[in-house]
Each structure stands twice: as structure tokens, then as C-alpha cells.
């Protein structure tokens, strides 16, 4: 075999060996243990900080709100859907009973027109239910621009929560 072919084969051999070695080195050690993926990924994901708490944990301190909400149309909404992630709040807010909460523990209070519109604005994509006499969308749809818009001249109510109680709409 001529010299240059030998060298070429040598180079390719080095390349392939290098690839195999790199493969061994780079392949994550837990790869393939549970399937075609890195088993450690599951464990690593459990280490991520949590932001949300379990659905019922708010009730412990806010029974009145909960009782109020359970009677209204929003009974099936979880508190955190509107107020945002509340793990830190439910862990530490207890000490501030009757006092002003520090900013880091404050939760969002979605009272503006755009907040309620997230769910109630007319949207063709919202599911319609149709059976027997019921013919409605899952969530009541209103045209936010049309539904009792704020009148800037007169001092009329502007926000949804001026007329609707968010916990018992």
C-alpha cells in the first residue's frame, strides 16, 4: 500500500478512535439507566426551587376568603391562578398578621381590566360546551371593550372589581 494511503487511513483511524474515546468521556454517566436519556436529569429537576404551593395551603390562614369563594362562580379557580406563585408567602406571611407585608412576600392582586380579561375576553379558541339545553363557553366571555367600559369624564367605575367581587363575582 502506498505511503500516503497508509497515512490517510491512519488519520481516519485516529479520528474514529478519538471519537469513540470522546464518546465514552462525554457520555453522561447516568445515561441509559432508565431509558434513552440521562437518569440524573430527573433528580436534578427535583432540586430546582419551588414557587407554587399546594392548592389548599392558603385556606389555613384565609378561611374567610376561601369560604366566600366557594360560594361563587370562581369556586373552581385556585388562588394562585390569580395571585401568582405563593409558596414563600404561605411559609412566611404568618408572622405579619395584621401588619404590612414586606414587598418580597406581597402577592399580586389582579384587579385591573386586563387581568380579568386573561380569562374572560372573547376568544374564538375558548372551548364551547354543547349538550342538552346548555350551550355555553366554559368561561363566560365578554367583550372587554364593550362591557361597562370606564367613562373617563364622569367618575364611573373602571375596574372589574369595582362591580364584581373577585372572590365571588
Amino acid at each position, binding site marked *: 500500500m502506498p505511503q500516503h494511503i497508509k497515512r*490517510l487511513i491512519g488519520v481516519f483511524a485516529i479520528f474514529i478512535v478519538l471519537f469513540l474515546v470522546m464518546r465514552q468521556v462525554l457520555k453522561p454517566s447516568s445515561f441509559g439507566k432508565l431509558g434513552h436519556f440521562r437518569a440524573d436529569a430527573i433528580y436534578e429537576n427535583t432540586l430546582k426551587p419551588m414557587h407554587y404551593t399546594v392548592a389548599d395551603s392558603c385556606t389555613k390562614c384565609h378561611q374567610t376568603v376561601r369560604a366566600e369563594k366557594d360560594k361563587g362562580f370562581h369556586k373552581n379557580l385556585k388562588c394562585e391562578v390569580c395571585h401568582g406563585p405563593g409558596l414563600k408567602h404561605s411559609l412566611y406571611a404568618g408572622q405579619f398578621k395584621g401588619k404590612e407585608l414586606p414587598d418580597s412576600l406581597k402577592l399580586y392582586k389582579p384587579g385591573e381590566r386586563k387581568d380579568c380579561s386573561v380569562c374572560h375576553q372573547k376568544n374564538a379558541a375558548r372551548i364551547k360546551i354543547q349538550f342538552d339545553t346548555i350551550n355555553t363557553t366554559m368561561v363566560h366571555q365578554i367583550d372587554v371593550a364593550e362591557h361597562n367600559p370606564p367613562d373617563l369624564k364622569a367618575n364611573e367605575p373602571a375596574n372589574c372589581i369595582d362591580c364584581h367581587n373577585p372572590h365571588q363575582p
Partner: protein
Amino acid sequence: MEDHLQNLYEVLSKVEGYVYPNEIELNWSILIVLYPYITGLVAGAFILASLERIFKIKVLKPTYGIALLTAFSFMLVATMPLVSHLGKPLRAYEIMITPHSSSAMAIFGFVYLWYLMVVLFLEIWFDYRRDMVIWGNESTGVKRFLYKLLSLWTTDISPKAVALDDRIGYIVTVIGIPSAFLLHGYVGFIFGSIKANPWWSTVLMPVIFLFSAMVSGIALVMLIYIVLTKVRKQLIDMECLDTIAKYLLYILLIDFALEGLDQIHRIYVAEESFEALHKLVFGKLFYTLFIYQMLIGTVIPLLTLGTLQFYKPKAQIRKLIYTILPLLVLAGIFFMRWNVVIGGQLFSKSFYGYTTFKTGLIGTEGYLMAAAWLIIPFLILSFLLWLLPPWKKIETSHE
């Protein structure tokens, strides 16, 4: 939370009708348009080179080396748009070390590697080895080192060794043609096999991609050849250009026919997706499909090239035509990729709504990034042309 809501509002303003939540944002951006485009240029340029070598079309000789080096430079960059599109580019190598046999994209890594190393690299290496040995002895400094390194410090340039190189180079080219088909057919396959998307899911997709690849590659080499001769102040080989133009015409015709067939089939079958696609094509894709891809990129070049087969104006005018046409064709094929990749994501798979594609100038998915990946191959090509000028090679006859 506030920001998040603001964002949601902005996003929702982009959609019309009923769109599933995961369809609002286009996940495959302009970089994914570039990926089939650049791979196509590679496959096309290589096939032009093999026309000379395998099918012995001698008039194409002046473009052989240019075509090979063009294919190589674009091949080096072909995966970069994909890699830079990844959220974690540094993990890109994982597709190679833990490939899953059921993943079309994972196997593409190996198809790519095969084509780059076994086909393009070997063909160029065997083609240039003797010249690199000679140039290595003649030059000094870094250049000398580069030649020595590239030729692996071999010295054997006896007629026997050179004949062997030629023989192996020939075999590599023979393997290379199906490989080039595989490479780009594969890119088409990746799109064509997405059965949930009626705009992509057609068995014709690999074939269409292949022929459009040839069209774009041939056009690119034609353009580079014209520019190069101009820069080097050489006389252009009109016969060669006429021949390339002829092949461009043929392949463009096939490409046009295939794409027409695809659309006619779609219109005739009129599946439930048809109305949504119809609205898409006449709405959001009107300019890119009818004007840029069809009119500018296909019909005008077809008519011009067709006319040139019967009526030959002066060489000067033909040269001008041959400079402008490839640009039109290249733009047309770019928009073909655009229409496939972006078009396929603009309509909802519910067939009741549409979204909008927006991208910025800057950012990892912006136009500048895309432009960079289109310019870098030309820089690599300039370097390769400086290092391995095809016109300085000792004439071999490729028998």
C-alpha cells in the same frame, strides 16, 4: 407577573382566529430556513462538480475545482444555523454521542459527517494531494506548513501514486453522488415526514428539495465562477457558462414540474387542510411564494434560459444575463425554503387560525445572525481559493 401578562397580550395580538397555544410563536425561525438552503447549495455544487468528473462533461472543467471548494466551504457551515438556533448550543455534540436511531435529526448528524469527511474531504484531498506536495516544497513559512500538514507530510508524487489518487478520487465521486442525494433528500425527508403538518407532509418533499438544491448549487457556482474570473481578470469561458446555463434550465424545469405536481396534487385532493392552506398561500405567503419564488426565482429564469437555447445574443449580453440570473434563482430558492419552513408554521393545525412571523435584526435568531452564517462560507471559500487555487493546479485529465 406584570411583564408576563404584558407579554401575553403582545403575543395574542399576532394571531388571527383559533390557534393552539404552542403555535403562536414560531419556533423554527430564519436560521432553520438557512439550514436547508445552505445544505442545498452544498449538494448542488457537488453534483455540478461530479457532472464534469463522472459524466465527463469536459466543458465544465473550469468550474470543477470551484464547485468542490464551494461545496466544502458551505458544508463546514451547514450545521451552524442549527447549532446556533439551539437554546444550549454547547450541548449540540450530544446528538452525536447518544444518537437515537428513531430520531431523524440524530441520524442526520452521521449523514452529514459521512458527506463532509468521506466524500468532500477525501475527494478534495485526492484531487489536490500532488499539488499540495509540490506547493509545499515551493512555498515557505506558514503556507509551507499548511501544505505539509494537509498533505500529511507525504512526498510520493510518482505517476503511479498520482494515478492511484485519481482512481480513488473517481470512486469517491461515484459514492459521492448518491451521498449528495442522500444528504439533501434527507433534509427534505425531515420536513416531509412531519405528518401533522399538511404543508410539509408529502413524499415528494425529498425529491423537491433535491432538485431545488441542484438548482441553487449550480446557480451559486455559476455566479462564483463569473465573479472569480472578473477578479482574476481572466477571460471567461463562454462555452462553459452556456453549458452550465443549459443544465440549470433542465434542472429548473424538473424542479418546477415537481413543485407544480405537488401543488396540483394538493389542489385536486383538497384534503380538509386545503382551505386553510389556500388562505395561507394567497394571504401571508403571497409575496414570498408567487412573486419571489415563482415569478422571480422560477418563471423569469426559465423563460430567459429557454430563450437563450434558441436565440443567442452577443457574449457580453449573455454574460450579463448569466450574472443576474443566478442571483434571481438563488433568491427564489431561498424563498422556497422560507415558504416551506416559515409557511408551515404560520397556520394553525386546527386549520382555523394563523399567526405571524416576526424576527428582529439582532439576537441569536435575528437577521444579522442569519446573514453571518451566509457570509462566513464565502470567507472560508476565499481562504480555500487562496490556499488551493484550482487554476494553479497541474492539468490532470481525470481519465
